[in-house]
């Protein structure tokens, strides 16, 4: 494996090996010395052409705990805001000897373009591209679900997950559907019809418009952020109505199964898709998702970079 562009490229064995590696690496984050020498001398560039807090610091922390050198590159305050193309940016990174590029981009497919080009030779890791995929988020979500609910099983067989909200604009939902399906979980999508993508019937999921009916039948409720910055149309009448039908309110919290957990990829719109008291409740693993994110991203960097031969790692 050289790049991580999409969950669709992963086999079940590869996905599980990333999760198992993350389990072992999690203890590094618990230990007194939070650093391993494994990627010493490797340079990892965080190329963020779109705003991000969690993902960028998470990848940065992961790279630093493996002793890699990290260069942060955000489009604001760089030449990209002067209109530099992806190609010229990539050529610059190649000239600097980047062994891996973690890329977040507003255009779906930008990481794939970077990986298939001859512009640079390092690994490309998709940290979210447009409305396409966000594979590292799906892996950390699966890691969190496995830790809480798999009862020692290696995969997620038999678990039921509801993904609720703005599926149309959500790369997190796309990656999660693929990975959960790969690992044997069943997925129900709950959303207003206006926020479902075209072609949802070809996804390996069931679809419901009734949150109250769906919520009692699942082990995991995964809320999605309403992506107002991508909405240039009227997708729901108003925030109060959205919240009443598709928000996770404290009334709905009572309908959940006893051991079920609540997830959210962040950042949250408290009061819109999730009520503040629900986000802070004991069932919520939202903060833990962030902590797990570092371990999972360490595993991704390890799998992609540690085993590179000198030949193909060339700079």
């Amino acid at each position, binding site marked *: 494996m050289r790049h991580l562009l999409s969950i669709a490229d992963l086999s079940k064995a590869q996905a599980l090996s990333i999760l198992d590696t993350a389990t*072992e690496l999690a*203890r590094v984050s618990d230990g*007194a010395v939070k650093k391993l020498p*494994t990627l010493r001398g490797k340079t990892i560039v965080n190329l963020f052409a779109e705003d991000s807090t969690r993902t960028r610091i998470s990848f940065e922390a992961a790279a630093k705990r493996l002793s890699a050198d990290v260069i942060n590159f955000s489009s604001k305050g760089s030449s990209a805001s002067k209109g530099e193309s992806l190609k010229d940016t990539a050529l610059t990174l190649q000239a600097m000897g980047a062994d891996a590029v973690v890329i977040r981009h507003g255009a779906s497919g930008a990481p794939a373009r970077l990986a298939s080009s001859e512009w640079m030779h390092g690994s490309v890791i998709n940290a979210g591209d447009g409305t396409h995929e966000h594979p590292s988020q799906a892996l950390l979500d699966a890691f969190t679900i496995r830790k809480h609910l798999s009862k020692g099983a290696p995969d997620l067989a038999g678990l039921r997950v509801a993904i609720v909200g703005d599926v149309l604009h959500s790369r997190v939902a796309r990656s999660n559907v693929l990975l959960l399906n790969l690992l044997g979980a069943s997925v129900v999508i709950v959303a207003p019809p206006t926020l479902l993508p075209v072609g949802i019937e070809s996804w390996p999921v069931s679809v419901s418009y009734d949150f109250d009916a769906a919520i009692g039948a699942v082990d995991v409720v995964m809320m999605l952020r309403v992506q107002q910055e991508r909405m240039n149309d009227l997708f729901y009448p108003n925030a109060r109505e959205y919240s009443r039908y598709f928000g996770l309110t404290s009334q709905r919290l009572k309908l959940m199964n006893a051991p079920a957990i609540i997830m959210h990829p962040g950042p949250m719109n408290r009061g819109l898709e999730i009520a503040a008291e629900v986000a802070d409740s004991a069932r919520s693993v939202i903060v833990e998702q962030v902590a797990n994110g570092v371990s999972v991203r360490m595993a991704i960097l*390890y799998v992609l970079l*540690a085993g590179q031969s000198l030949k193909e*790692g060339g700079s």
Partner: protein
Amino acid sequence: MSVALSSADIARALVRLSHEILEANALSTQITLLGIPTRGAHLAQRISRTMAEIAGHEIPVGMLDITMHRDDLRMRPPRAIMATVIPHEGVNDRDVIFIDDVLFSGRTIRAALDAIGEVGRPRSVQLAVLVDRGHRELPIRADFVGKNLPTSIDQAVKVHLVEIEDVDEVLIENN
């Protein structure tokens, strides 16, 4: 291919190693055994049981994965990371005994010395191996050796254990 150590030889060597470790460490309650996965971890379990019978109390035993500290990571395909299990006593101020199956170049033990530094600061670190086959590439030696096995550099030493291969034996293969 020839059998260098039979099942009975291995059993005898492990009992002798157990006695030697206890003799060299007067305070047996200070000892913690750490096996290097995978075969070293199994050997550590066996030695811990034998030592417990001799000493009359439990000997803490765990395992220490050294994958992330290897110096040949970038020359090979990625390796799976094994579990690290540190007994609840920890390693600070204890006499830690590394247990491995074969001592060869010494690079694994160098990595283990790095890895233990992340867990804590033992009072001392010692090394027990089932087989020392020579050809060291680093200034490292074992404190306790089950069997010195002179080999040529082209030969391969294979250790099979009941826990994994259903048989205890050490083989020498000529390549």
